[in-house]
């Protein structure tokens, strides 16, 4: 598979479809698994790592479902390509920056990927657009069964699936939902909402945080605990709070529209204006502004742009994506210029250079 081909697409998790997709960006599942006959990665030498990679590829490779996947040898990938896969969330930063033989099998539709020799021998992950927990679980469960038929997982009668870090032992399952919550951030309710989540064992993380402030108002909710609760209990636990968060966000948006219409419209319009006219712009600023525009589109304050377009801009303006799309390496200053030009081309297209806004 050519990564350049992926670069032009959007990727499943930013497709912008699926239930509640104005607020819920994606549903992600991850399973941590290890082969019983090898040490965990920390105690693996080059030879062990190669043997793990070979064992998995040989045994599972024969399955039809697996043969459709593109296998990428991450150890041999140039840094910009590794970064590209991180930006697309097909691999983790840990795999990208790890060492020794390691790789990832990628579904061409980008709905799932299987990382080999990350923190655990196997990290299976499934990403669906929108709020789609049950289907995402069914899919990852099937992939897990398929692999389980061909290898022997490290498993303990009392502790469940054994993992390199005791924080993942048990089900090895992380259920995550990524939400876009700009109105809760604007109305300064976000902290309070998250404090209530921590009381019920859920973890909250910002996306693409480059400082203490998460960028783009994206937040990921996931289960903290992996042991002692079944997969369906974990899914239910995360699934239960999502409608609540959606409701809070919608109420905050309604409040902004009702009581702060002028300020809101001003913020959205300015964001749109800067994105359409800037000559040089950082990734962080782009994400913040796109976030406002995204909310503006969802509230009907900006017409002529579709949510999938904005989602695509979120990912295409990331550093490695810009360079893949441009077809060459760019330093930070050049990237900021390239990013501004890219935004102009894609935002002005279709509305002839001017932001047509509803009054």
């Amino acid at each position, binding site marked *: 598979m050519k990564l350049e081909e992926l670069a032009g697409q959007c990727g499943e998790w930013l497709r912008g479809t699926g239930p509640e997709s104005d607020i819920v960006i994606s549903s992600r599942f991850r399973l941590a698994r290890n082969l019983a006959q*090898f040490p*965990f990665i920390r105690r693996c030498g080059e030879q062990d790592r190669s043997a793990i990679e070979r064992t998995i590829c040989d045994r599972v490779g024969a399955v039809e479902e697996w043969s459709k996947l593109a296998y990428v040898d991450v150890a041999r990938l140039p840094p910009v390509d590794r970064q590209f896969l991180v930006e697309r969330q097909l691999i983790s930063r840990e795999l990208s920056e790890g060492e020794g033989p390691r790789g990832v099998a990628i579904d061409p539709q980008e709905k799932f990927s299987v990382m080999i020799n990350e923190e655990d021998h196997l990290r299976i992950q499934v990403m669906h657009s929108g709020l789609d927990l049950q289907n995402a679980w069914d899919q990852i469960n099937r992939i897990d069964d398929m692999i389980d038929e061909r290898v022997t997982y490290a498993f303990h009668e009392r502790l469940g699936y*054994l993992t390199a870090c*005791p924080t993942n*032992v048990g089900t090895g399952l992380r259920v995550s939902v990524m939400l876009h919550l700009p109105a809760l951030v604007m109305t300064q309710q976000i902290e309070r909402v998250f404090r209530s989540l921590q009381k019920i064992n859920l973890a909250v993380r910002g996306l693409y945080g480059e400082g203490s402030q998460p960028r783009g108002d994206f937040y990921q909710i996931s289960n*903290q605990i992996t042991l*002692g609760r079944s997969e369906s209990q974990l899914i239910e636990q995360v699934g239960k709070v999502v409608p609540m968060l959606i409701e809070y966000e919608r109420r905050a948006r309604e409040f902004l529209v009702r009581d702060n219409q002028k300020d809101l419209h001003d913020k959205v319009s300015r964001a749109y204006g800067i994105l359409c006219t800037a000559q040089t712009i950082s990734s962080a600023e782009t994400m913040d502004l796109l976030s406002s525009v995204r909310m503006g589109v969802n509230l009907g304050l900006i017409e002529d742009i579709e949510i999938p377009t904005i989602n695509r801009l979120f990912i295409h303006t990331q550093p490695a994506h810009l360079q893949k799309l441009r077809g060459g390496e760019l330093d930070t200053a050049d990237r900021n210029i390239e990013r501004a030009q890219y935004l102009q081309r894609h935002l002005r297209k279709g509305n002839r250079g001017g932001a047509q806004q509803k009054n």
Partner: protein
Amino acid sequence: MKCQKCEKPATFHITELTDPAGPLELHLCEDCAKTYLTQGAVEEPGPAMIGGALGKQVQVGQTAEELARLDQKVCPVCGISYYEFRQAGRLGCPHDYICFEPELEPLIVSIHGQSKHSGKVPRRGAARTDRQTDLIRLRREMKEAVEREEYEKASQLRDQIRNIETEY
């Protein structure tokens, strides 16, 4: 205040809302904060939690003497010491859950609030994996034999390994 991961001054103060381990405060310099936050961006509240839980374990219980003794405990299969686990937050092999059980148990309870798995089981059930564990040990012993230039022993071990491997 100094960064917890390097010598630079800490300018980022991050609170991880981990439960039941409780809120975990991190004080990091800009570079380390960047790495830390982008690492977590994909998923993983884990790495922060293990640090917090391990820290608590040390605070609550053991005297320095007990801890020093504990640190020297070594897994007979993969050769990791408890000290190495405590430093890295990562275990060396599946057998560690058995040989470090008394030490890991309170840690696991403080992370998960429970100590018994509920949910999916592999197709073969909870069958014992002693043979697989033997493989891990034998491969390590072979590597060590080669390093000590004990080639005869290494080749015996290799035959043993091959015999087991063909069973799977």
